[in-house]
Every structure is written in structure tokens, then in C-alpha cells.
């Protein structure tokens, strides 16, 4: 009995309960009818929204690789609802093309190494003034571990997609299965398909295990895009290029793929002593697929 009164009168929160909260409460009965929105009236909250959409029907944002709204669809302008289907498709196709160009264009090969060195043109414009001098300049700048590690990837590759890997993997499987023997077409198709995906995953996991700090799917994306030269090789095999002609052409194509694929090591944080064994899985992957194209 002696302790109970503190619950009713001595409670310090009672004053809060009684006075302040009561004032802050919004009673629906107090609301004025004029404060509420009239849905039928045009001057409601919707008016600026409509205006927004109309404003955004203007041309594409600065770079179509970047959305003006962060977190939205990465390449879409603000409205996709009233554009033609062809626009939607071509935007994705163009994005795939742009990524492929960034992976495979010689300017970006070896992590932009050729660009920094002045590239082929810079070597040819050099003091030698001859083709031999240009080649010697390139050979002299053959990348070592430092160059491989310094190279970064271009900005457009930061947001990965798996469209390119899927398309090139399917094309490679299809072209290789066309030249296989008639009872092994399905085996070759599924085998190559699995080989590509498992190979991409294993190579990426191996680089991560060696201490490389790379994003898994970004690496899979880049390796998938670098399959393009091998798709060309498979296409040449499908049209029955003679064996003798295949040897130099395929070596060049495999080297192209490898030089592009090494760029995933750029800025990955692999220790310099381990660059050799981090590149070797990529080498085995490309050479293995290249051999498969060769004997098809």
C-alpha cells in the first residue's frame, strides 16, 4: 500500500502522458476538409509527377551506360514505357557491343598497357621510323608482372552482365557441335557449354584463392567477353579452314583472348611473385578451348 501511490501520482511520466502527448495528438475530428487532397482536382500531388515524366522524355542521359537515377535499370533512360521494342533491344545489344569493344579493342588489351605505351601507332611513329623498329619497341615493352598488376579495367566494365558470356558460350558450343560427328553433337554441345562455365568459375576461384581481390561475376563477365576470338576460331573451323592455315591464325586468336583475359588481374592485389601461376589457369583455359577449335 505504501509503494503503490508512486504508480499513480509519483510517476514522472504522468506529466508527459497528460499534457504533451495530448497536445501532439492529431485527432481526425480536428482535420479540416480543406487540408485533404481532392483526387478529382487537377492541382493535386500528381501534377508535378506528370511533369517529371514529360521532362524526362528528352534525349538519353549523358552516357547511356549510366542511368540518371542511381539504382534504376543501369542503362535505361527514365522512361521505357513508350519507346519501341527495337529501342529497348538495341540498347542492350549496344551495351554488349560496347563491353566487348572495351574488353577486346587493342587499346584496352593488357589492362590498357598498349595505350599507355603509345600503342602500335606510337611505336611506329618512334625514332626507328620503320616497321622493324616498331615491332622491336613492342617486344621491348612485353608486359611483365608489374605491368599486368598495374593495369586497371575501364569504367564501363564496372557493371557486369552475363549476356556476353551467355551469347559467346552458346555460339562456341553451337559452332563446335556443328563440326562434331553426328552421334556426338549433343555431347559436344553440352560438354563445351559446361567446360566454358566451369572453366570460368574455376579460373576466377583460383585467382581469388591466390589472394586476388576481384569480384566473381565481374571476372566471369570479362572472361566470357574474351571468348569472342575463340568464337571466330570456331567459325573458321565450321567453314573447314585448312589445317595448315589454322595454326598461325588460331595462335593469334588465342593470344588475343589471353591478352584480353589477363586484364582481370589488373589491380586485383595478387602478389607479384604469384602473377605467373595466376596467369597459367587462364592460359590453360584459352589454349584448351583453342585446341578444341583446332581439331574440330
Amino acid at each position, binding site marked *: 500500500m505504501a509503494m503503490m501511490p508512486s504508480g499513480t501520482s509519483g510517476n514522472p511520466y504522468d506529466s508527459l502522458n497528460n499534457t504533451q502527448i495530448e497536445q501532439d495528438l492529431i485527432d481526425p475530428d480536428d482535420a479540416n476538409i480543406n487540408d485533404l487532397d481532392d483526387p478529382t482536382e487537377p492541382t493535386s500531388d500528381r501534377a508535378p509527377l506528370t511533369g517529371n515524366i514529360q521532362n524526362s522524355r528528352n534525349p538519353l542521359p549523358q552516357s547511356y551506360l549510366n542511368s540518371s537515377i542511381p539504382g534504376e535499370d543501369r542503362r535505361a533512360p527514365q522512361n521505357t514505357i513508350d519507346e519501341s521494342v527495337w529501342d529497348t533491344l538495341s540498347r542492350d545489344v549496344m551495351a554488349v557491343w560496347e563491353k566487348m569493344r572495351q574488353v577486346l579493342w587493342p587499346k584496352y588489351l593488357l589492362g590498357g598497357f598498349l595505350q599507355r605505351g603509345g600503342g602500335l601507332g606510337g611505336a611506329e611513329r618512334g625514332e626507328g621510323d620503320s616497321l622493324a623498329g616498331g615491332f622491336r619497341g613492342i617486344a621491348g615493352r612485353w608486359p611483365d608482372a608489374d605491368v599486368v598488376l598495374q593495369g586497371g579495367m575501364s569504367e564501363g566494365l564496372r557493371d557486369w552482365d552475363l549476356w556476353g558470356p551467355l551469347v559467346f558460350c552458346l555460339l562456341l558450343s553451337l559452332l563446335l557441335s556443328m563440326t562434331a560427328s553426328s552421334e*556426338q553433337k549433343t555431347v559436344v554441345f553440352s*560438354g563445351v557449354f559446361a567446360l566454358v562455365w566451369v572453366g570460368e568459375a574455376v579460373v576466377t576461384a583460383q585467382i581469388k584463392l591466390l589472394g586476388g581481390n576481384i569480384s566473381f561475376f565481374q571476372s566471369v563477365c570479362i572472361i566470357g567477353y574474351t571468348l569472342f576470338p575463340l568464337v571466330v576460331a570456331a567459325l573458321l573451323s565450321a567453314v573447314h579452314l585448312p589445317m595448315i592455315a589454322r595454326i598461325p591464325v588460331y595462335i593469334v586468336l588465342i593470344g588475343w583472348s589471353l591478352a584480353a583475359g589477363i586484364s582481370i588481374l589488373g589491380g586485383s592485389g595478387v602478389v607479384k611473385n*604469384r*602473377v605467373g*601461376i595466376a596467369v597459367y589457369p587462364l592460359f590453360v583455359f584459352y589454349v*584448351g578451348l583453342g*585446341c578444341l577449335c583446332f581439331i574440330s
Partner: protein
Amino acid sequence: MANRGYDVVVDVDDHEGDLGHTDLQEDLEFHSSNFNDTQSSKITPDSTYQPPSSTSGSSKRYLWTLSFYAQFFAVDTSHVLHRCFSALVPRRPFLDILDGNPDLYGPFWIATTVVFILFLTGTISQYLASHHDQAFIYNFKLLSGAAGLIYGYTAIVPIALWGLLKWFGSGNAPGESSIGLVESWALYGYANVIWIPVALISWSPISVLNYVFVAVGFTVSAVFLTRNLWPVVSVTEAKVSRILVIGVVVAHAGLAIAIKFLFFA
């Protein structure tokens, strides 16, 4: 004097919220001199706390994290090359070269290399043996066969050997020159190095030459295996150790014969 000091203490107290030093008069100088750079005094405790927590986080390795498996790949390029070379030209015991740091990089990628080279040269060998009046079509099953043979042999036989050594070696001195599972894998994996040059040169249609090459490959890798396994196996009873070594050699002969007749027939 005391009154003035008291005011200063209250002032510092408001800003730093440090109640522990307010009751000590001799702390006054320290606090007022520290007052200007409160930012640095707040950062230092954080930086001293960080290292212990990070080291304790990395020392805990869970089976499902990638960092757990990274310990099996803690090798440099020079290590791998040195191990490959010493598997071809054995001078010191291989377990000494491993030096308590067996890696799985070598076994996996050597096996992968052998698989692709066997597939390629096996196909070339079939191409040379085929009749040239019709178009040659390669056999894709050769690749899956090579993968099954090499990966299977390199993965399963070391497990069996390790298990048998655990079983029979348990009666003897525990821990005495026993072989770990990863070491066992590394030993078998690096023993595969010899198949790379052997497979590279035995695509020719000359049958006698292929027998010689495969026999050389078998001899080198079998000698490598028995030499390095003998100190480990011999801790068991004499009869058991002899049977184990014979089993290892017979299994390896099986691999060599399979390579010869599947790919270079």
C-alpha cells in the same frame, strides 16, 4: 585557484564526456593541453583496437569460406616451378621440399594440363592412324575419358593411400612421419608432371616409340612415388609396407597402361 581549476574541469567534461579524470587535480594540465586536439585523441584508441580484432578474424578459418582453402594455395611461382622440376629430377626427398606447405595448385593444374595434352595428342595420334580417304572427325569422349582418368587417379588413390596409412600406422608411434592428406595429394599431383613431356612426344604412329615413352614416364613417376612414400610407409609392419608399396606401383602401372592404350593405341 581551486575554484578556477574546477571550472576548467567542468568545461572539458562537457566536450569529451570523460568522467574518469575529473576528480584528480593533477590531471588539469593534461586535460587542458589535450583539449585542442580532441580529434587525434579520439582516433588513436580506434586504431589500437583494430589490429587484434582483425587478426582474430583471420585466424578463424571456416570450412565454407574461401580463405580456408587459400591456405592450400600459399605458393609462389618459383615454388611451383621448383617443385615441378624436383619431381622430374629427384634429388632431395619431396616431402622435405614441400616443407610442411603442401599446395593443391600444382596437383590441380598439372592434372588439367595433362588432360588437355592427352586429349590433343591422342586426337593427333588417331588422326595419323585414320584412313585419309574420309574426313577425320575427332572423338570428344577422349576428353571426358582423359579427365576422368587423370582427375580420378590423382584424387582417389591418394585418399585411399592416406586412409590405409592411417589405419595401419595407428598401432605404431602416432605422428611419426605420417603423411597428411594434402601432402599425399601433392605427391601424386606432382608425380604427374612427367606425363606432360611424355604425352607431348608420343603422338607418333610408331608403336615401339610410344611403348618406350610411356615406359619412361611410368618409371620416372613410379620411382618418384616409391622413393618418397617409402619412409612414410615403412613405419607400418614389414609385410604391410611391402604390400602397400606393391599396391602403389601396380596402381600406377594401371594408369600408365590406360594412358598407352586409350590415347596412343
